[in-house]
């Protein structure tokens, strides 16, 4: 009787195994490749220049005395410390600084600051913060706020935090290839005790 040689693989078996192996590698690639983009994005979060520049902003906010009690809602909205801050998000403008208005305008210009926000330190109102961001097109800031961890209330040391967005121009190979890069920094802030005279 003729002996059948059953060694080797059939073509179908090879194709099925190859499909499985390629599928697994594709899954791995799809899951791990975006991490490279995430890593590059996070290079702009809390870099050394942003941290020290945010410190200057923090000191400016802490040094500005509290205003006298506001008489109207419009007046209250023009203050740094108001209901908006307590409820999760207040965008800081230089018009809110009475004693340091000129310093504020120079600081924003010299440090390439795009926007300054005050919020609660523990980020418990993160969703309120983010829900208002999308409408202003601040996608990068949305992602930075997403990246910030939930910090437990640290026994009254910091109740508030400042989040600063910086916008700088990076020169590429030539002047035509200039592009805008956003950096972000955050720091805990104390509410001042002193009031305007």
């Amino acid at each position: 009787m003729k002996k059948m040689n059953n060694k080797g693989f059939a073509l179908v078996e090879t194709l099925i195994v190859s499909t499985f192996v390629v599928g697994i590698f594709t899954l791995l690639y799809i899951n791990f490749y975006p991490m490279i983009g995430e890593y590059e994005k996070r290079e702009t979060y809390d870099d050394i220049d942003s941290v020290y520049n945010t410190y200057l902003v923090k000191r400016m906010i802490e040094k500005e005395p509290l205003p006298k009690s506001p008489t109207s809602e419009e007046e209250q909205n023009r203050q740094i410390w108001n209901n908006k801050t307590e409820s999760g998000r207040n965008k800081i403008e230089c018009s809110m600084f009475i004693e340091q208005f000129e310093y504020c305008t120079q600081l924003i210009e010299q440090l390439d600051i795009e926007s300054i926000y005050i919020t609660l330190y523990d980020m418990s109102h993160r969703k309120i913060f983010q829900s208002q961001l999308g409408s202003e097109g601040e996608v990068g800031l949305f992602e930075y706020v997403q990246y910030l961890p939930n910090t437990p209330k640290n026994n009254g040391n910091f109740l508030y935090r400042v989040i600063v967005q910086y916008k700088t121009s990076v020169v590429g190979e030539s002047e035509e290839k200039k592009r805008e890069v956003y950096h972000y920094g955050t720091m805990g802030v104390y509410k001042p005790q002193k009031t305007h005279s």
Partner: protein
Amino acid sequence: MGLWEYINLKKLIHNHKGITIIEILICFTITAVIVVSLFKMINHYKDRQDLASYKSEITAYKDTVTKTIQGNIIKHDGVLDVCDGTQFCSNDLRCNLNGSDYKISYHCDNGVITDQYNDSYVGTISTYLKMTDGTVSYLEIKKQGDPDAHWENNRTDDIKYSITYQENILDDQTKEVFSFPDIQHLEFNEPSIRRDDQSGFLKIYVGSSHPDFNDQFSVLDIRVPLQSFYPNSYIGL
């Protein structure tokens, strides 16, 4: 020949084990094609890895120098005043900071301090910073090449860059020299230490450039308000 020898001989003649030379040549050709096609890809990733390591070294250097200088500025309650480069460029070569005179031993060239070689491969920019608490610090950005090597081969590879910061000019123990990592073809460019009288800010900047970098990176980029312009010590601790 017996039957057994005959059968063995037949097996010897009809031995189908082994591999022919054509099969070997085909295998080598296929392997060579695969290796050559992968070589380019691997080379590309190796270049990317080299660039990433350069960026990492520059970032580490920047972090160290920035932390030292900024940390000292905060510790001494901010910078009160600073000698601008143009202040040095007079016959006197002296810098007056709030009533105190500091003598500088460098030459001037179009408003920029240079040392006596005054060539493109050797140069120094420096300044004194008077802090709010009275401490006077010293900052120097230097590039130093080998004049003989430059004249022979017009090379710039052997230029060394360094930043020197002395927290207190009265105490030599506080002097720190930060030598830039030795990265081939990487140069400092556009170094400047300027007091901006319009904004009241001190700006210290050192850029870097490398032929393989798409973007320019800053090695140092410090901007602090001068307390002489904003006198309420806004950045004091």
